[in-house]
């Protein structure tokens, strides 16, 4: 059975419209105009236990609306939704006690309390048996290296430290489902991979199902086997990262470092995207010319120091996907 089953979910918001200026403000007092915004416009997907799903889209696409509905804190206008076998907004308390949530932008820890007291408090709030709580806490403290932070009040933590504590806090009650909203925001280059590694292990070793919304495409590339792309309240694409790539563009990139700083590369099958000094970025269609043939041709005509072939980064793919769907 699916862990999450969502069918045809629709959610609209009424937004009060104000005409500009004094006259508009006065008219607004008498008769308020509302504009209906469709945040979700018929969304369907399902998630199986143990999946690690990236849920991405631009701001205002409906990502957080979906997450709020899945967490039982927002009721949809229509459509069906089941999380862990329950309708979240009808059985909110039962549902939320089995899910963990991390919002990168805000903390769920108590601002004035030392981290360890926030943890204890969460253990009590989620009614975790004492022994289980201590085991989970010690394990998370060890894995996320929180020992030196435990006695520090949350307000004194840096963003990266707070983020690690928040992730630990969301897992104290051993949830089977974890929603992460921008979990690597504020983390430095050393911590980001560490947190990703932690999430991967959590997913593989404990089978925690993870839904991740993020703007950091490296997170997606490093973590997610499946990506759901949402835009304007509709699902634009749902599937493996590779399938998404294949669907949007088959294009590949060839990056060439020339010996000569102002050397030109003119090839009928490769278009130049940009150049940075010695480095030239080309794109080509592997159906028209194989990478090997193109490299042969270019190295035969130009003095090349180094070159490598690359897939377009996921940002590029997503940008094109939006471009396509809006046309």
């Amino acid at each position: 059975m699916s862990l999450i089953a969502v069918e045809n979910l629709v959610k609209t918001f009424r937004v009060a419209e104000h005409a500009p200026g004094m006259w508009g403000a006065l008219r607004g007092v008498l008769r308020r105009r509302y504009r209906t915004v469709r945040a979700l416009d018929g969304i369907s997907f399902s998630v199986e236990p143990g999946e690690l799903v990236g849920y991405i889209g631009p701001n205002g696409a409906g990502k957080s609306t979906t997450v709020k509905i899945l967490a039982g804190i927002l009721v949809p206008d229509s459509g069906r939704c089941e999380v862990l076998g329950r309708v979240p907004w009808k059985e909110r308390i039962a549902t939320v006690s089995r899910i963990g949530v991390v919002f990168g932008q805000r903390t769920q820890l108590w601002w004035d309390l030392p981290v360890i007291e926030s943890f204890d408090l969460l253990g009590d709030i989620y009614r975790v048996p004492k022994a289980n709580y201590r085991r989970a806490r010690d394990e998370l403290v060890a894995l996320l290296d929180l020992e030196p932070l435990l006695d520090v009040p949350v307000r004194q933590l840096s963003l990266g430290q707070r983020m690690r504590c928040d992730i630990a806090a969301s897992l104290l009650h051993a949830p089977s489902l974890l929603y992460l909203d921008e979990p690597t925001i504020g983390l430095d280059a050393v911590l980001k991979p560490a947190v990703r590694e932690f999430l991967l292990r959590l997913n593989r070793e404990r089978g925690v199902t993870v839904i991740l919304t993020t703007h950091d495409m490296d997170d997606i590339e490093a973590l997610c086997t499946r990506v759901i792309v949402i835009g304007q309240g509709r699902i634009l694409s749902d599937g493996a990262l590779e399938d998404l790539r294949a669907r949007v563009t088959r294009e590949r990139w060839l990056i060439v470092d020339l010996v000569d700083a102002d050397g030109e590369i003119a090839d009928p099958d490769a278009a130049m995207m940009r150049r940075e000094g010695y480095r030239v970025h080309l794109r080509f269609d592997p159906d028209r010319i194989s990478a090997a043939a193109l490299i042969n041709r270019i190295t035969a005509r130009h003095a090349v120091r180094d070159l490598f072939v690359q897939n377009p980064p996921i940002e590029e793919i997503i940008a094109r996907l939006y471009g396509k769907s809006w046309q």
Partner: protein
Amino acid sequence: MRAYWAVVSARLRMLLQYRAVALAGFGTQVFWGLIRVMIFDAFYRSTNAPQPMTYEDVVTYVWLGQAFLVLILWGVESDIRQMIRSGTVAYELLRPLDLYTFWFSRSLATRSAPMLLRAVPMFVVAGLCFGMRPPPSLAFAVLWVIATVGALFLACALTTLLSISLFWTISGEGLARIVPSLVAILSGMIVPLPLFPDWARDALDFLPFRGLVDVPFRIYLGHIPLEEIAPLLFHQAMWTAAIVLLGRWMLARGARRLVVQGG
């Protein structure tokens, strides 16, 4: 229960850290207490007519009022206001808790921490220096403690209701200013209710606010005959229950609006 108790105790521990705030509050209240005693002193000197309360009782009453000012001095819970304004209140629903009980627990801690921090030193200082007297007998003392706990719960029910009203008023500025002054008068904090004119007494006796100040304070003074105390405690408990029910009903509606309309 464990979950809600944990919320209360964590917040209590946090608030008990703010010793400087408590000390400053204590200083201010001693000052205001002296001013109020002087006003009543002037009032009692200027009249020969027998008053419903003796001057000595009024002095003790004033110091009780200074010790338990937090029973009436409230606005809306500031972090709930913050959450409703910024729309993050929806995230409160992520906890596996009943929202009303959760907020009520929070308010219980917010009221009782400063009450403990201020009442104890106030009793010592006012008892030693300013003529505050102990209750006339152990029976009154015990009943006073019960009535004070009841008053605390009534105050929490009222403040929680006030916080919930923010779902409709959003800013809460207006309410936060008006309500404390009204309650200060209606509860008997400013002027003891027996000193009010007769025509006002019926309404004041009926309203819930006397349960906050008038009832516990006059029990302490021994001003209410023992056999009349039970109905007053019942009055206090009934109002608390009614306000809790009203708060729950309003919160259910407010939360519905929130989850239907979005944070």
